[in-house]
């Protein structure tokens, strides 16, 4: 094996200029199958891109000499990863810098094997350019398709396929043309915004930085020239403002600001903004960049925003322009890559990180596993490490998110093991549950069927406190006055604890576990109904705070807790079904309030006290309150 010593002179780096080196930093990910020549290519790129320090160079010369090679083996320059591979230890992403006179590059080098799909994902997630190597002699391999799939999935804006080892095929145009045709056919089902092919020889140095004299039939630029000319001046980010809040900064009572990075669009002082999720709106009053106040912050800038109103804004909330909000949903589908040996299966509880939001969630379904080499779909029960799949995710509360194709930052997510805390999978949002535009982006007349879950009103209280009576009267009023009440097109369902126990939950007794299960099932049913737009009134004793908390988790933000309070003396006196008397005589075991505990809600959304109010007062109070929630 011979490696000609690269002897041509290096371009001089620009003189130190002050205030600052104007070159931008471009992030690249590289991939190729084993032996496609990636190490050699990278070595040459780094060498010719002025990135090899003399100490590294000396080490490589020494290593080359040690193996009896006459010339310096450029592949050794990047062989940190190869050494790992041979020693069977972790293979990971390695980052390297190089530069040209125009630009600086930060290169994420990822290994080629199928089992390192997750590493390829990692490198590609922040890349603006992907370079895929293909061996001209051997042609594309299954790995080539896998890498192309990931690069397409992650929407890396620019993709360069470098057809390497052209020297092995006599620098022949027909061989190159045939290969490019085959690649285009192979990859026809994938989407690329910008896909280019370049014939190179990494070993000889053709078309890596210098144009090749051996391939006069190729009129295009070398790889490095291509990198230098890519359109990166304006980043391919959408124009909508997205500002995920990292934290509130409050040095004193009269200064409160929100720290974050503008991940897309821009924001100026005076802009009307909305805080998502939810309808909170306000105006930007100040923008701080370090110690300076600035009028406008654009994509990529890390700033502090001050707002006109004192709103309750927390980490994870997203600040957007009022006219251009993100959709809000608590269920979405995404394409994920499994990042951990634990794997992933339907039903798994996960902690979902989207932008700076972190919410509890669950994998509700694995739609299909994707074979990244054939692009075929197949059913899968459990996804192993490195699997790619479409999954459905449900969240415990709605979040603001975008589809990944609209925004690479607010449409990407990480699934974390809620107990062991390691990353399970990373993915991109492909579908929102409704895929409808958010309510305020659509004129009222054309607003489609309700896209958000309908509210669930959870009435908790002792037997005989008035839960069922109040639920019935509210339901009746909703049915007759619903049109005016803003409940357009929504029906009302009552889930009464006793009724459910007679049917669905007939198998459950009154032990603590059985009561918890009773509440869980009712909450799940309420959730299903609410999802489909039905207003739900649950009248369930649900004696323990933990049970109601779990109902709140299942139902999410649609959940409203209403405490129906009545003191025991009054209840014993009313006792319409004679139950308290029987319980007091010991004829009913585990009767709530008598022989089984009841924990009153500590912070209910509404309290109705039926021992101090008369029935019509109570009805009026709950009705008015519920109307405001519709």
């Amino acid at each position, binding site marked *: 094996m011979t490696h000609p010593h690269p002897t041509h002179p290096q371009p001089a780096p620009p003189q130190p200029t*002050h205030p600052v080196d104007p070159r931008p930093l471009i992030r690249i990910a590289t991939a190729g199958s084993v032996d496609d020549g990636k190490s050699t290519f990278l070595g040459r790129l780094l060498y010719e891109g002025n990135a090899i320090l003399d100490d590294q160079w000396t080490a490589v010369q020494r290593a080359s000499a040690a193996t009896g090679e006459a010339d310096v083996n450029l592949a050794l320059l990047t062989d940190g990863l190869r050494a790992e591979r041979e020693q069977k*230890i972790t293979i990971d992403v390695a*980052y390297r810098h190089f530069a040209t006179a125009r630009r600086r590059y930060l290169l994420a080098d990822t290994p080629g094997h199928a089992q390192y799909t997750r590493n390829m994902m*990692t490198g590609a997630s922040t890349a603006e350019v992907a370079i895929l190597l293909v061996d001209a002699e051997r042609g594309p391999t299954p790995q080539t398709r896998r890498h192309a799939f990931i690069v397409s999935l992650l929407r890396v804006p620019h993709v360069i396929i470098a057809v390497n080892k052209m020297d092995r095929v006599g620098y022949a145009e027909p061989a190159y043309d045939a290969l490019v045709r085959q690649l285009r056919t192979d990859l026809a089902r994938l989407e690329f915004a910008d896909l280019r092919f370049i014939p190179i020889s990494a070993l000889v140095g053709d078309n890596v930085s210098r144009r090749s004299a051996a391939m006069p039939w190729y009129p295009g630029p070398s790889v490095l020239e291509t990198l230098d000319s890519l359109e990166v001046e304006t980043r391919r980010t959408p124009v909508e403002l997205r500002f995920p809040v990292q934290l509130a900064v409050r040095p004193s009572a009269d200064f409160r600001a929100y720290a974050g990075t503008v991940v897309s669009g821009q924001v100026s002082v005076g802009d009307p903004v909305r805080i998502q999720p939810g309808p909170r709106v306000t105006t930007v009053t100040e923008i*701080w960049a370090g110690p300076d106040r600035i009028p406008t912050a654009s994509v990529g800038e*890390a700033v502090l925003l001050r707002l006109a109103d004192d709103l309750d804004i927390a980490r994870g909330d997203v600040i957007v322009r009022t006219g251009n909000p993100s959709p809000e949903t608590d269920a979405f589908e995404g394409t994920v890559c499994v990042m951990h040996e634990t794997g992933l299966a339907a039903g798994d509880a996960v902690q979902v990180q989207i932008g700076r939001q972190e919410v509890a969630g669950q994998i509700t379904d694995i739609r299909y596993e994707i074979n990244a080499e054939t692009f075929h779909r197949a059913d899968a029960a459990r996804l192993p490490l490195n699997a790619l799949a479409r999954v459905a995710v449900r969240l415990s509360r709605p979040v603001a998110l975008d589809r990944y194709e609209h925004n690479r930052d607010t449409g990407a997510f990480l699934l974390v093991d809620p107990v062991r805390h390691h990353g399970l999978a990373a993915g991109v949002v492909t579908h929102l549950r409704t895929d409808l535009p958010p309510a305020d982006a659509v004129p009222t007349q054309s607003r489609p069927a309700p896209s958000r879950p309908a509210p669930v009103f959870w009435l908790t209280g002792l037997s005989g406190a008035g839960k069922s009576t109040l639920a019935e009267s509210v339901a009746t009023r909703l049915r007759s006055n619903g049109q005016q009440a803003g409940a357009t097109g929504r029906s009302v369902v009552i889930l009464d604890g006793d009724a459910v126990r007679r049917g669905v939950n007939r198998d459950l007794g009154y032990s603590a576990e059985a009561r918890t299960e009773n509440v869980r099932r009712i909450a799940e049913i309420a959730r299903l109904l609410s999802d489909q737009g039905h207003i739900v009134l649950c009248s369930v004793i649900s004696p323990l705070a933990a049970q109601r908390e779990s109902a709140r988790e299942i139902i999410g933000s649609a959940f409203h807790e209403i405490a129906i309070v009545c003191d025991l003396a009054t209840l014993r006196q009313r006792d319409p079904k004679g139950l308290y008397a029987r319980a007091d005589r010991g004829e009913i075991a585990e009767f709530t309030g008598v022989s089984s505990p009841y924990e009153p809600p500590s912070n209910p959304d509404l309290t109705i006290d039926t021992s101090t109010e008369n029935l019509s007062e109570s009805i009026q109070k709950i009705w008015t309150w519920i109307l405001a929630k519709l």
Partner: protein
Amino acid sequence: MRRHALLELEAEAIEVLREAAALCPRTALLFSGGKDSIVLAHLAIRAFAPAPMPFALLHIDTGHNFPEALTFRDEFARTYGLTLHVRTVQASIDAGRVQEEPGPHPSRNRLQSVTLRDAIAELALDAALGGARRDEEKARAKERFLSHRNAFSQWDPRQQRPELWRILNARKHHGEHFRIFPLSNWTELDVWEYIAWRQIDLPSLYFAHRRLVVPRGHVFLAVTPFTPPAPEESPREATVRFRTVGDATCTGAIASNAATVAEVIAELRASRLSERSTRADDQRSESAMEDRKREGYF
């Protein structure tokens, strides 16, 4: 117009610093009075301005530091009103936690990791911020922004957490902590360019000055109480500067006339070229490698 690299690296570091503040309530910034930790501290100040930064400074003092760096350290904390915790290797030795290396002029470089581990436990830290960079060496090239450490402060490369897009996963169990490296994507030259751009003060050690030294291998060792010359060595005065200002027993000076930040930058740029194009065995390149290894040691 696309922003220049330093702006991008600055924004990235600030974003990571803010994640540290948001996710790890008790975080300290490892501060030695060296250039990387000074740049990191300035970034932390920027990240929360006009509010104060929410991190205390923590210095693990080997007891072999240059007085210029220690003075700078103390003044920095005073100027910016920051809490400074100093934990000494000497105290760890006295407490029997570690043993001094045998021999006449022991290096305490290796011992300091025990002192650091103890300090993290004592201060109940969720995270320690460090100025390490991926360009320092091959192993560092694979580090994450957030590096998870188990309850024994160990780094398990196979359990590295995936970091995609801008998402950082800072969930941990009680007793575990993170090392956080906001400068991961910076190069040594970036650090210097940033110092020039943001007009950051450094200890005088970083600039050419006259000093009593002895040549050791390819570098010069400063003559200090911890590093007296060997009997056969004859100290001489030379114009030198330091590329790092760690423990005096293992921090070499280089011959240099670079007396300003701009001159240091010019020297660094030139040395890269000459290191490549002229002598394969350039002395400075050897020291560069050593310097990086030491810097990466933390």
